[in-house]
């Protein structure tokens, strides 16, 4: 459990931003920083409501990166204005309007909820403001057909994350899968992507169950799963659903006889504490893993743990990477934003190394091209973390 005393409204840094990542009160620039107008980054994240913990992790990642850069780029100061979307489209759009029209931000960063994503993509096209999303993973938001110059996704698409898993699981020798997930867009899209490649390799699906919204108890489904006798269960649950499903899967004795695999959120750093030993051995696919063995990632993880006294999650990384994209685009333009079109071009040309590996953008969809990792949850001392079993490089979303 983490507590971060945050003054969310505006973050201004003094020129002597501490390595300890403390937040300076809104204040004065040190004379060392140039007199150029500061660049404003508008951050949209759910800080209350259903996705509150994800939103907090995300903004932590964003803040951490900008603080590492001493809240400046090429001599120009950077301001963050963070607003709460409450994961509600109405509020999300309202806050976006505020950031764009009242606060005159230079770029929008953030959003987790896909519903907000759909609405916002249209808005930024009308308002002509560059937006880099760190969430909003629904497949339909970034397709060739609705590509527009202002909206970018630096996180992932559900399809992109799940498709490699099908190939990998089939090659591992699994033949009979029972698929399950929450009955809404994300849950279904993940399954569709997985099944496409899994079945292409000759494996088969022996059953499917999509749990209606608000399912607290998976017992009826677990009974059905047992009867179908698959060799693997592929699940696309996230958040509290993921916690419950994995726990109940083990409680009903399925952990020892059937392999459990899923979309990365099923077994991620934010669910492990509650899931406990039930999570051990679960395979999952996502664009990051705690255990990625690169200096970049190891530094990131160590710094995050020190700064926030909590374990980074994929959302923390998403925020961090989004901030990297924006900052690098600023730097390419010399620390200023002459126009949104120039910024859009700079973001499109992104080619950087991140804790998740190298990333770039697909010009046809403006969705990120990145590595996808197949992970397994393993015990690591007192904790449980994901270690990498396989890497799929430069995965892109087909965009159709």
């Amino acid at each position, binding site marked *: 459990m983490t507590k971060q005393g945050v003054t969310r409204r505006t973050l201004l840094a003094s020129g002597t931003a501490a390595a300890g990542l403390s937040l300076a009160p809104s204040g004065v620039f040190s004379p060392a920083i140039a007199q150029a107008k500061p660049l404003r980054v508008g951050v949209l994240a759910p800080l209350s409501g259903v996705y509150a913990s994800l939103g907090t992790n995300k903004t932590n990642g964003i803040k951490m990166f900008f603080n590492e850069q001493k809240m400046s780029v090429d001599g120009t100061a950077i301001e963050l204005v963070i607003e709460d979307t409450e994961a509600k489209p109405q509020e999300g759009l309202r806050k976006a309007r505020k950031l764009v029209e009242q606060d005159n931000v230079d770029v929008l960063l953030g959003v987790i909820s896909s519903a907000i994503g759909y609405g916002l993509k249209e808005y930024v096209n009308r308002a002509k403001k560059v937006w880099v999303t760190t969430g909003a993973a629904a497949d339909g938001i970034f397709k060739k057909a609705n590509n527009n110059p202002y909206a970018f996704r630096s996180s992932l698409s559900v399809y992109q994350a799940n498709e490699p898993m099908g190939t990998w699981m089939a090659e591992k020798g699994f033949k009979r899968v029972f698929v399950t997930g929450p009955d809404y867009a994300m849950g279904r899209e993940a399954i569709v992507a997985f099944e496409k490649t899994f079945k292409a390799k000759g494996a088969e699906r022996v059953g499917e169950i999509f*749990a209606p*919204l608000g*399912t607290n*108890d998976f017992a009826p489904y677990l*009974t059905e799963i047992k009867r179908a006798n698959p060799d693997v269960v592929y699940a696309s649950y996230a958040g509290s659903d993921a916690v419950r499903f994995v726990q109940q899967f083990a409680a009903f004795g399925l952990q020892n006889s059937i392999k459990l695999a899923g979309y990365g959120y099923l077994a991620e750093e934010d669910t492990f*504490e509650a*899931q*406990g030993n039930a999570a051990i051995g679960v395979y999952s696919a996502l664009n990051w893993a705690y255990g990625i063995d690169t200096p970049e990632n190891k530094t990131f993880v160590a710094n995050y743990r020190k700064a926030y006294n909590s374990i980074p999650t994929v959302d923390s990384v998403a925020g961090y990477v989004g901030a990297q994209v924006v900052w690098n685009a600023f730097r390419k333009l010399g620390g200023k934003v002459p126009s949104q079109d120039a910024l859009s071009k700079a973001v499109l040309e992104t080619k950087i190394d991140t804790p998740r590996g190298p990333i770039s953008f697909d010009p046809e969809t403006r969705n990120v091209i990145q590595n996808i990792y197949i992970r397994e949850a393993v015990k690591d001392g007192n904790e449980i973390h994901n270690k990498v079993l396989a890497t799929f490089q430069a995965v892109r979303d087909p965009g159709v």
Partner: protein
Amino acid sequence: MFDFLIAQTLNGLVYSMLLFLLALGLSLTFGMLRVINLAHGAFYLMGAYFGLTAWTITHSFAAAIAAAIVGAAFVGMALERSWLQRFYTRNELDQVILTFGFALVFADIMKMLWGKDIHSIPVPSLVSGGVQIVGTYFPTYRLILIGVGIVLFVATWLAIERTRTGALIRASVADRTMVSGLGFNIRLLFTYVFGFGTAIAGLAGVLGAPITGIYPGLDFEVLITTLIVVVVGGLGNISGAFWAALLIGLAETYGKALYPAAASFIIFGLMAAVLLIRAWGRDEEDVE
């Protein structure tokens, strides 16, 4: 086929008992005090959090249960004493707004104290295994929950129907002035009853924690379901709450297993149907 029936019926029973534990407190509070407590879900979550803290410190499930009951009862009685008492004569809508306000306040306070992450309490190792029942493996803990629900139902029913205190409570409901005129301290009685209701909610929270998890937002999720059970069972009717919980628990479980697509509608459709059937044929007088 047979093992399917056994398995799903057991699943349904567990879910029903959890629903009953929730509905019991709310129904009791309404029946005895005529107060609709929309903060009821908050007490469920509160109990789970108190239990979580106790468990984190002592690693004892029993301590968690004790903490949940005592904590929820204490906060409940404090709420009743300090605020709710003034609202007994106010109309229902006022109580709804007041308790809703407290629900929001409690929700944020819990977020401040325990954070936003998802937590859980592991099932006590003594009962963490399972048993084979006619071919299906069933977690022991869930079987225990069924037992707890039934025991609590019987115990509460006996307490209300067969003890002196129960008689006192029933009398106060029927005629408050008379009972207090006879010299009994009605105020204290009501405080205890309310505290009992919230304590049960807290107990449900900690017992349910290994199954539902503990996180912000659970309070309102649980509240909705509880309201539905209570409405179907009849406000203030304890046996009604029990049978309604059984009906809804089993219907939802079988619904999920057989017709997953329609499952979401079942619970609301059921409530609407029950309400309308009750209202039908009655004259236009208020159904209250």
